[in-house]
């Protein structure tokens, strides 16, 4: 009895490993060069995009609405034609290839499930169009239904499902085709916060397990940071920065990226001398690595790096400010301060230390290494 179970388990595991390796072999890199796209006379969606996405990477295109991220995704899918530029997927030139010939599948923002088909037929659609034999098709659909835990839902009609279930099915419908690249166009934006957080984790796990190249589009910087291996931040059809979540968050390439990543504490640099800069807050010392010859750009102070009250070490920058507002967020406390008439936000973890009241004068300690210069 025990033996039998063991054998089954081993067989199962072997099959899973086999599936995984097969998928990993399928993962493709993407290379974009000089991609341009214009709608009408004066609406430029993409103004020359160069981007390399590695095979098996979870890559996110992040930006505000109208920044060109969805257009870029649609060009990858073949649903939109670029005006100019090169695109290779897995080393193959696909720029003139129609969508039905690309080994790329998309999870659409609206899910775009076929309402006239059952869940099963939705899942089998891509395989059927690709002409796979029925037996193979049924096996793969059953496998993916199991994988994504759809269970008895497969017999239902699409309009009888909840948003979260539809989202799963849209994902499964794309995954079952085992594409080289999976494109996801804000697939979580229609879901409530709880489900969204849960699916973010699931999607990321799934991608690691399959080793497939994922290109994910979102306007939510938290989502992008949680899920991605690397992020490209777009604005007005131009890539502003490409990097890992920590690079983009901690060292934004310019003021736009900094603001988009949620930073409020940006101060114009009026003068700089060696590793000292003058800002509205006062004169601050930076890490020598941040030294620049020109006084341009902005100084970024991350709110969570500020130390309020208590003693300030000698090599720290020391400021004094007044608490204007206090926002209690449970795990952390957010203070809105004014320093020399300039607003400054600080966030302190709720570790049981003294909580400052509105109107309190507090000392602010800033480690020079936490200060980052940001280009304009």
């Amino acid at each position, binding site marked *: 009895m025990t033996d039998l179970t063991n054998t089954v388990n081993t067989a199962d595991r072997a099959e899973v490993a086999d599936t995984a390796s097969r998928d990993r072999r399928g993962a493709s890199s993407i290379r974009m060069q000089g991609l341009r796209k214009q709608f009408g006379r004066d609406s430029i969606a993409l103004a020359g995009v160069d981007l390399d996405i590695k095979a098996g990477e979870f890559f996110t295109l992040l930006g505000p609405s109208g920044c060109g991220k969805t257009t870029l995704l649609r060009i990858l*899918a*073949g*649903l939109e034609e670029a005006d100019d530029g090169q695109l290779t997927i897995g080393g193959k030139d696909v720029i003139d290839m*129609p*969508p*039905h*010939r690309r080994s*790329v*599948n*998309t999870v*659409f*923002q*609206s899910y*775009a*499930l*076929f*309402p*006239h*088909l*059952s869940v099963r037929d939705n899942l089998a*659609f*891509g395989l059927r*169009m*690709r002409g796979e034999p029925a037996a193979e098709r049924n096996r793969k659909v059953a496998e993916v239904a199991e994988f994504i835990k759809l269970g008895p839902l497969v017999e239902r*009609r699409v309009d009888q499902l909840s948003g979260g279930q539809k989202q799963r099915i849209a994902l499964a*419908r*794309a995954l079952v*085709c085992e594409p080289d690249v999976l494109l996801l166009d804000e697939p979580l934006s229609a879901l409530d916060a709880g489900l969204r957080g849960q699916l973010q984790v699931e999607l990321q796990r799934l991608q690691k397990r399959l080793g497939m190249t994922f290109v994910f589009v979102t306007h939510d910087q938290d989502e992008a940071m949680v899920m991605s291996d690397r992020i490209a931040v777009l604005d007005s059809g131009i890539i502003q920065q490409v990097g890992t979540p920590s690079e983009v968050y901690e060292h934004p390439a310019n003021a736009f990226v900094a603001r988009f990543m949620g930073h409020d504490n940006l101060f114009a640099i009026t003068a700089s001398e060696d590793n000292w800069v003058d800002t509205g807050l006062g004169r601050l010392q930076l890490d020598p690595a941040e030294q620049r010859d020109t006084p341009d750009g902005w100084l970024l102070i991350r709110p969570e790096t500020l130390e309020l009250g208590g003693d300030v070490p000698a090599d720290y920058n020391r400021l004094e400010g007044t608490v204007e507002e206090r926002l209690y967020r449970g795990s952390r406390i957010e203070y809105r301060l004014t320093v020399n008439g300039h607003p400054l936000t600080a966030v302190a973890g709720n570790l049981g230390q003294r909580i400052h009241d509105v109107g309190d004068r507090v000392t602010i300690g800033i480690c020079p290494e936490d200060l980052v210069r940001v280009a304009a």
Partner: protein
Amino acid sequence: MLQTSQTASRRHAVVSETRHLLFTVTPGAAWIIVFLVLPSVYLMAVAFMTNGPYGLPQLPLSLNSFEQLAGVGFLGWSPGNLYTLLRSLWQTIVATGLVVLVAYPIAYYITTCRARWRPIMLLLVVVPSWTNQVIRTFGWMNLLAPGTPLSNLAEILGLISPNMGLYPSNFAVTLGLVYNFLPFMVLPLYAAFEKLDTAQVEAAQDLYAKPVRAFWNAVFPQTLPGLLAGVVLVAIPAFGMYVIPELLGGGKAMMLGNLVATQFSGGSNWPLGAAGAILMLIATFIGLFAMRRIGKRLGGGEEVVI
């Protein structure tokens, strides 16, 4: 005391509900009884009576009218009425098919237009039907008569014999039917197209469907409810059409509607006319039933026709 008042109020509620029901249901019910049920009963009764002087129905009850309808007369059996029935069916099928072929691209085209143009384009489709049908049919007579440019063109192309004209003919009847019923197909198809999410077409292409297969697998099935609704709206009135075959067929292309009408006027045989009307009703019900079955099969078990 309390209980009594409760019972009283409950009784009051029941009474007011009944009165409410009476007020809302009565007008509709009266309408249906006076204008549908009673005439139908009368028609049935007439159909089973015997033809009397001046074509008026009289007793005794008999199946004479149905025998005549089947073509049995003094001189034995003649297939005239059977031909009329078959011609009606054929004209209906051909005209409905052509209407579908013409209306489908029109409806699709309108949905691709800018939102503010769409109501205007729909209006352009519908406006002709605001003119009296007889007048419009006379218009077609003038367009298709012998010696008109269209007839001359058809003659040059060798489609018709010299000096015959496109009217009167079966072709003219078909054309008239297609023209007349086009809006009834465009509107439900437009509604179906309007509901369609264009992302689904993209999803189909993304899932390896070539454009033609994307249409048949993703678009067409979703417009099917609209299409079938349109077929019902076109085929049923076309089957019973009187004016168009009367005017454009020139007596050579009689349909069932004309047969019935003749019996109530010149032909003077009310029981035969009533029997013809009943035949039309039965044929219509069979057609509707078939459409429902087809709709259910194609619509994945959902009720898509009426």
